[in-house]
């Protein structure tokens, strides 16, 4: 009886209990490691807690909105997003060598962050009424719709966000059932034009790729992050050095330790076993998201839920991959653990959408 009441309450609030539990567990771990990574700074924790509060609020709001409303808003949001991206390039604030922010007077806003949600929404909207699997022409149109904001974001330049936006869009195309032969052809094309990308990359971006291939070539410069990060992870061993005892992080050898490289702090202090726990929580959230996608009742909700879950995976994998030296260093935080506000809001908003899709399905049927 109690269990029924409990789930009834959640049903009314349109929250998904498994997702909620997973998120809370993850954020709990996040707080613990952020306390250590920030040098036991309670101010940092307080600010992070406020962000989480706001992000939870937005998640809760979005969970209340049935997905067919979102679907109707999709093209308008997309149009608005592209205009904002163009505005950023024209009048945006410069921070850390990149124009990402739009100063609206009362608050600073990063339109590229919005696009992480809006792009998959638009592509899902595009395919929602069309027979699937899509034809080549439709795939092409969808591709262009993904490319426009992606190019604008690369131009800021913000490679990390561009990767996430692109992959969120492409994942929708993939989930829409694009034929394998088209996929293979596109893949081949991508490989062929890869050298041109190299040509248009900024020096520091090229440096990161080169550094990945041989970090020891520049141990004090670009390779420093990777080397120190690998040392932190490796010296953690199976069981870790213990909470607050990671020398790499506590003695500041590890750069960016409360933001992009917090995974290394975690690995150093909690070891491989801790990592397995962390990855299990992530895997649980991703699989739950995909389950919600499979159970969704219309194409739009399905595609959007699938893309959101998979983008979350991309987040985790790219961050863990770059911190452990598998992938080049791109500025992608560890979702819901890294210190920082904007990605927190976007990700929890996405989970709000997932919850909405799941909790509104009976009402729609």
């Amino acid at each position, binding site marked *: 009886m109690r269990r029924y009441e409990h789930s009834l309450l959640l049903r009314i609030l349109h929250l998904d209990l498994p997702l909620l539990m997973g998120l809370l567990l993850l954020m709990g771990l996040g707080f613990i490691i952020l306390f250590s990574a920030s040098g036991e700074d309670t101010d940092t924790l307080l600010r992070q807690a406020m962000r989480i509060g706001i992000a939870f609020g937005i998640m809760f709001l979005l969970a209340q909105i049935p997905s067919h409303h979102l679907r109707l808003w999709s093209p308008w949001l997309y149009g608005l997003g592209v205009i904002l991206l163009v505005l950023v390039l024209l009048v945006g604030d410069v921070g850390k060598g990149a124009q990402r922010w739009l100063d609206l007077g009362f608050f600073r806003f990063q339109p590229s962050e919005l696009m992480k949600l809006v792009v998959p929404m638009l592509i899902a909207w595009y395919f929602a009424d069309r027979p*699937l699997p899509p034809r080549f022409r439709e795939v092409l149109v969808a591709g262009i719709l993904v490319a426009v904001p992606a190019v604008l974001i690369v131009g800021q330049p913000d490679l990390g966000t561009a990767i996430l936006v692109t992959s969120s869009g492409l994942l929708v195309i993939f989930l829409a059932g694009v034929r394998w032969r088209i996929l293979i052809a596109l893949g081949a094309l991508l490989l062929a034009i890869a050298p041109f990308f190299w040509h248009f990359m900024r020096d520091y971006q090229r440096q990161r790729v080169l550094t990945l291939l041989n970090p020891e070539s520049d141990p004090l410069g670009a390779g420093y992050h990777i080397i120190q990060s690998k040392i932190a992870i490796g010296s953690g061993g199976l069981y870790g050095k213990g909470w607050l005892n990671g020398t790499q992080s506590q*003695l500041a050898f590890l750069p960016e330790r409360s933001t992009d490289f917090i995974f290394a702090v975690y690995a150093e202090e909690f070891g491989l076993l801790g990592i397995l726990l962390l990855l299990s929580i992530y895997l649980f959230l991703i699989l739950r998201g995909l389950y919600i996608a499979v159970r969704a009742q219309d194409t739009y909700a399905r595609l959007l839920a699938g893309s959101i879950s998979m983008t979350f995976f991309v987040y985790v994998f790219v961050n863990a991959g770059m911190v452990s030296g598998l992938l080049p260093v791109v500025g992608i935080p560890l979702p819901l653990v890294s210190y920082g506000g904007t990605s927190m809001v976007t990700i929890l908003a996405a989970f709000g959408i997932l919850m909405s899709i799941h909790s509104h399905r009976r009402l729609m049927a």
Partner: protein
Amino acid sequence: MAQHTIKDAFTERRLFFSRVVVLVVFIVLLFGILIVRLSHLQVVNYSHFTTLSQNNRVRLEALPPPRGLIYDRNGVILAENRPAYQLEITLEQVEDLQETLERLGRIVTLENSEIERFRRLLRRKRPFQAVPLKLNLSDEEVANFAVDRHRFPGVDIQARLARHYPMGEEMAHVVGYVGRIDERELARIDTRNYSGTSHIGKIGVERYYEDVLHGQVGYQRVEVNAQGRMLRILERQPPVAGRDIVLSLDVRLQAAARQALNGYTGAIVAMDPRTGEVLAMVSMPSFDPNLFVHGIPASIYNQLRDHRRQPLFNRALTGQYPPGSTLKPVVGLAGLEHNIITASRTMFAAGYYQLPGHDRRYRDWRRHGHGWVNLDKAIAQSSDVYFYDLGYRLGIDRMSEFLGLFGLGRVTGIDSTGERAGILPSREWKQGALGTVWYPGETIIAAIGQGYMLTTPLQLASVASTLAMRGIRIRPHLLRGIINSDSEELELVSPEYLSPVRVSHPQYWDQVLDPMVHVVHQPNGTAYNSTGRTAAYIIAGKTGTSQVFGLGQDEEYDESRIAKHLRDHALFIAYAPAEDPRIAIAVIVENGGSGSRTAAPIARMVMDHFLLEMGG
């Protein structure tokens, strides 16, 4: 949604599901790769990364041992360690290096070579490490910088111990100096024991006793953060300080000897014949060894190196001079030992000597000769002709062998650097060095210490000492003892006896040593007027004048007509008091003209100081 004509909800659902399955496989695969990667880092290479992490965190710092001090025999400090202030720059904290250097240049003098060296070092260091810019700041520069310090972020003054020689040029040659370790020395030394040490003994006692003076390096393991800042000491092994040494030198006698040379270029070596202890070792002119400690500026070094009078050259050990007549007592002893002469035998010494059947005349220094001379008169008045004859009859082989017994032609093995062996000519030597046979005429001039023969002032002092001790030979040495670091007591070194000079009849010694007293104390003796007449104690000595400039066959040596740098070298060897020798001395005055007039009075001044004023 399904109202679209060809939209098939069921197929789409299945299609979507199959895609999700593909993605789940993909996710599992990539997570698998990630876990394999992390296991590789955390399990397989765990010890490797643990080591790296430890190396990151823990820094082994060398604690250089303080260098041992050097004292004279009375405890006067000859070499000490003083705090020196150096200017250091931490690049990380400097905004504009070029501009900072320019502004610093207005407060302290910066040589171009210093800036170049700084930039070289800078490339090897990490930006958070302090790099020395200027090594030895004057007190004024330190004060000037202290006032303006706030204008120079990243620039700091660091105090450390640096070698200082309070006696300055008084002891420069003999004590030597330390300087920065160079590439060659780096290959020679145990680099582990020198980690943290920047200086090493370069010449003299500083170099010879480097191992004693240096000590044993210590270590501390410290925990550092990424900025290289020390957080705490984990473990510490203190260094073992270098041991203090006491030299046999006496600064008072050294000063007296320098004063006695009175501006001449030359060298004086005084030693205690009974122990082999060197009491004074002077080479003039000298230089300030402190210049070398902090890296001598090239301009000053070139000036010293190219100076006509060669101040860097340690004449006492490295200078090689024809001994001239100072060796006559030894050659006389050789004649006695080989029964060529007896003390009573007389010969008529004219103004020159000729080999039978040869035209060449070997002139005596005294135009008309000395008349009838015996060994005593030949030594006291320094008859060249008597020794020409003796040398000719003794022959080069026996002469060379006998002079060799006194250690000529070989280094004495004194505990310092740069000693030369001189030349003891012989048939073998000439064949080896010049590739020609020995000519009888060369024997004749060898008998008066001319020709090929070369000796160092130290060798001559050692000869004087051997004569004083009637054949007992002790290796000359500068080290009196080492101070025990625990008991702080002086552990004296014992004299090292060398193979003595033995003669068949002890009276032979009297037969050459008595004439040496007559040199100084008989009115006809060569050093009587200049030296012996007013002496308060009995001196045994022998004057010498060695040619720098070869005279023509019938030319007269006229000092006033010959350029100063071609004038003869003046030499004198002596010991005193003759009946109980406590000091043996050799004096060489380059271009001093005459041994009797120039060198002998200088030797007496030194001996006076030692025997009368110091009560030695």
